[in-house]
């Protein structure tokens, strides 16, 4: 490999000088066409983030409805039919339309900036992924509003979701939503991995890759391996329902347990690829606000990778109450407990970083401290759940509801809310208000614990999950009321947070390039970054490029701005390898996404949609990939060194 590398600066010598920003070909067309056709990772990333937060708001609204219903025993506010749709859609939105996409959305925005790249790999595919995600999510919400939302839980266990007991088209909407989000998730994952491995700035060898980026690569790789399992399962569910295959039908030799294995083989790693992006954000915030690099970089990276591997070995702990053999269960107990070790290593490394740092206690760090408190509790109840005997008692009770919210909100939402405050100046160019930020943090932190802590006790006291009501004689009333009041506090804190975001975006003080004094490359460019990310692509000389004296060793010259040239570097050492012309903006991914949406939604109703939809998608994709002669000529000019 090293033979093929071209020393920086010698890239096709004098032919071209580094164009000025005004001459940039990166900006792309304006107007509606430009808006629909953009392939700028920052615009797509921003859209992705905003859309994911809108789905978070929708899911949160549904949660508030559930808490209103459960506030008092024997309440008649929502009937079982609506309630089942609401809790199923709440879970589905939060897991598939918020938690996974928001991590990927942050990666789409930040990873190219952190590795010093001009753009993201496969940008049209990322644009396509966004549109497919948006359309799928809208489909789910429309189904819910029309009273045909999924009602068999976010896990859609068969046979309840199968053809015999799942009425109407409700579970089909769920299964197709999975298809939408998985197509989107897989594409973004591929793009993040390719960007990180092949487009890093020269000099950013693997041992200098920021922890944030490492975590996102681990997340994306996990997505690549986990999502096919649930895609397979949901497709089998659709064929069972639509064309009468009997994959899950026990009466015809199928097996309902197969569904659980396939589903959890995806859904347990999913928990980890929801919270590893949270760890990514924590690593960034801890370093910046402790004013020093994270302690134990190799240990943290190896822990992330270990988590990624172990996460695939514990899905059966969701199935301890089925008749899995006892010895097998002990294996999964051990694996479920072992995965706590890499998380503990990271926790200790961060605490050590703070211990030996100089602490700048600002809102993002508050959220990280909240993360420590909440995630540690959630992790410890997770260890309890790994023990088979204890799990048999609290499985499918409110104890698990408490546990999973401590892990997912603690592990993903706390860092995310801190991360938004942290990168807001970079993305918007203005800063959010510090006092309002702290106020909304405290309200959120207290509200969260008031909501979810009592659920531990409710679960031990026998309250099962997914019940639309409970009897007054159970004695569960007061704790449920407390929990509902906490939910209102969470709602208030999030409204305050949104107010702070809007206020900051409209009239916050101008941020400047690097308001927090961060050490990674995104803080070296303007806020918000220009379309081409960096006026001069950096050559990296250290792990914290902006903090080390020789952190930015130089810059890459001779990369054409007008022709949108990007530098491809080697995987391990990030040595310059060749340059490549980037594609131009196009609306075809948008139209292909519409065609794909037609195929997916129509196939809820008729199998013929696959027959007629496939040529449609093929046609649109052909238009998308249709080569242009002019572009091919330029490719030849630039990429083949003239000898």
């Amino acid at each position, binding site marked *: 490999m090293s033979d093929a590398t071209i020393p920086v600066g010698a890239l096709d010598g004098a032919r071209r000088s580094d164009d000025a920003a005004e001459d940039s070909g990166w900006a792309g067309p304006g107007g509606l066409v430009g808006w629909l056709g953009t392939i700028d990772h920052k615009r797509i990333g921003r859209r992705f983030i905003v859309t994911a937060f809108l789905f978070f708001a929708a899911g949160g609204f549904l949660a508030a409805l559930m808490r209103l219903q459960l506030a008092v025993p024997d309440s008649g506010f929502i*009937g*079982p*039919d609506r309630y089942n749709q609401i809790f199923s859609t709440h879970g589905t939105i939060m897991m598939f339309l918020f938690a996974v996409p928001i991590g990927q959305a942050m990666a789409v925005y930040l990873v190219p900036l952190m590795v010093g790249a001009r753009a993201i790999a496969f940008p049209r595919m990322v644009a396509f992924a966004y549109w497919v995600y948006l359309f799928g999510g809208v489909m789910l919400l429309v189904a819910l509003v029309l009273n045909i939302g999924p009602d068999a839980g976010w896990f859609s*266990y068969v*046979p*309840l979701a199968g053809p015999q*007991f799942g009425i109407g088209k409700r579970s089909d909407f769920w299964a197709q939503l999975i298809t939408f989000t998985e197509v989107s998730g897989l594409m973004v994952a591929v793009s993040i991995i390719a960007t990180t491995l092949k487009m890093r700035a020269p000099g950013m060898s693997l041992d200098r890759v920021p922890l944030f980026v490492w975590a996102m690569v681990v997340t994306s790789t996990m997505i690549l391996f986990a999502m096919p399992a649930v895609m397979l399962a949901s497709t089998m569910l659709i064929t069972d329902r639509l064309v009468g295959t009997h994959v899950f039908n026990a*009466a015809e030799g199928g097996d*309902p*347990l197969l569904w659980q294995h396939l589903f959890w083989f995806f859904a347990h790693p999913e928990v980890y690829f929801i919270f590893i992006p949270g760890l990514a954000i924590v690593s960034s915030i801890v370093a910046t606000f402790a*004013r*020093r*690099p994270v302690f*134990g970089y190799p240990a943290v990276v190896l822990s992330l990778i270990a988590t990624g591997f172990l996460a695939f070995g514990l899905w059966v702990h969701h199935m301890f*109450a*089925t008749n899995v053999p006892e010895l097998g269960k002990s294996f999964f*107990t*051990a694996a479920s*407990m072992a995965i*706590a*070790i890499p998380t*503990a290593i990271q926790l200790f490394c961060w605490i*050590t970083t*703070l*211990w*030996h740092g*100089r*602490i*700048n206690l*600002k809102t993002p760090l508050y959220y990280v*401290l909240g993360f420590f*408190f909440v995630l540690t509790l959630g992790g*410890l109840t997770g*260890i*309890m759940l790994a*023990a088979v*005997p204890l799990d*048999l*008692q609290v499985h*499918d009770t409110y104890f698990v509801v408490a546990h999973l919210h401590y892990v997912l909100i603690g592990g993903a939402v706390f860092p995310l809310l801190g991360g938004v405050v942290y990168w807001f100046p970079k993305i918007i160019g203005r800063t959010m208000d510090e006092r309002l930020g702290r106020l909304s943090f405290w309200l959120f932190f*207290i509200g969260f614990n008031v909501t979810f802590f*009592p659920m531990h*006790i409710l679960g*031990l*006291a*026998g309250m*099962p*999950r*997914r019940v639309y009501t409970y009897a007054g*004689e*159970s*004695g569960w009333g*007061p*704790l449920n009321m*407390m929990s509902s009041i906490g939910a209102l506090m969470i709602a208030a804190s999030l409204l305050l947070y949104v107010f702070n975001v809007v206020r900051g975006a409209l009239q916050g003080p101008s941020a400047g390039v690097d308001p927090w004094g961060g050490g990674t490359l995104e803080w070296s460019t303007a806020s918000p970054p220009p379309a081409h990310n960096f006026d001069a692509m950096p050559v990296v000389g250290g792990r*914290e490029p902006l*903090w*080390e*004296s020789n*952190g930015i060793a130089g810059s890459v010259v001779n990369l054409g701005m007008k022709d949108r040239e990007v530098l491809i570097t080697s995987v391990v050492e990030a040595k310059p390898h060749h340059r490549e012309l980037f594609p131009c903006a196009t609306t075809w991914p948008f139209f292909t996404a519409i065609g794909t949406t037609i195929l997916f939604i129509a196939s809820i109703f008729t199998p013929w949609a696959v027959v007629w939809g496939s040529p449609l998608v093929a046609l649109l994709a052909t238009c998308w990939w249709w080569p242009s002669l002019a572009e091919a000529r330029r490719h030849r000019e630039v990429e083949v060194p003239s000898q």
Partner: protein
Amino acid sequence: MTHRRSIRTLGAGLWSCVIYGATQVRAAPFNQDAIAAAGPQAAHIAHLWNVMLAVCLAVFIGVMVALAIAIIRAPQGNSATPPDSDALAREERPASRAVVLAVLASTAGLALVFLASVHAERALAGMDRTGALHITLTGHQYWWEAQYDDPAPAQVFSTANELHVPVGRPVIFTLLSDDVIHSFWVPNVHGKKDLIPGHSATFDLRVDQPGTYRGQCAEFCGYQHAHMALLVVAEAPDEFDRWAQRQRQPAAEPAAPDTKRGRDVFLASTCAMCHAVSGTTASARKAPDLTHLASRSTLAAGTLPNKPENLARWIEDPQRYKPGVNMPPHALPPQDAQALVAWLGTLQ
């Protein structure tokens, strides 16, 4: 400092809310509590809970104290503080040692709870099953069918939603499902086990304390998952034998004219298409066996107390109490309805 005091007041206030809520749960009429063990299995699990709670609390406190010290001892900085980039080159020996120690300690803690877990599992699996009572429990949307098995066919009988078991004698359940996945769970007695269509599972338990324990379906099973409860009545062996003997008897021939009319209404209306009453021609198995309905304390799988007025209302419009239940409404003429309730009330 008023700031600190108000935080303390807030914390104390929230804690007292939690404690109050927890006492309300304990004081409730329902016996449905994983910590209040009424049998050896639940006791083993409650013991494991105590061990894990202690270990986890210690770890949690340890981590929080370390974090608090880190925050308090570290000097203040701000965004302009020069970053300590030398840390990349320095060997941070004491810090490494502290982290390694902490990781070793947590691994040891994990090994401890793992062993405790395996120990509890073995205790659960090793329960003595000699002389066990056998019950086949079938889950239906949204009720429980229990068949008390016996080598002699004449001794076999069925009931629904209320199990009686003798104190101190192991019970072996065969768990089946007629439709979707359900989960059998009586927290005071043992953990849960799923009832999965196409699979049969066995599950055993023993109740040592006499009493009535409530259980509830723990796997989401559709509209009325919330109202799929069952009661386990644990009583002295001779009391249990008397109860079982009664359950084996068919329904008596009604004596009074209105109960006679009630029975005829039952047999002539749609009731008999789903329900069975032994001793009559009604033998359908789609819905709970009603041969000894009046001996049970609840109606509709724990939804309503078993009182004549509730029964009348339930028959008239089950969807009002349990929307989505498979039983249709019955608009019977008032006299027929009264007679029906009167006859059902005689099915002791």
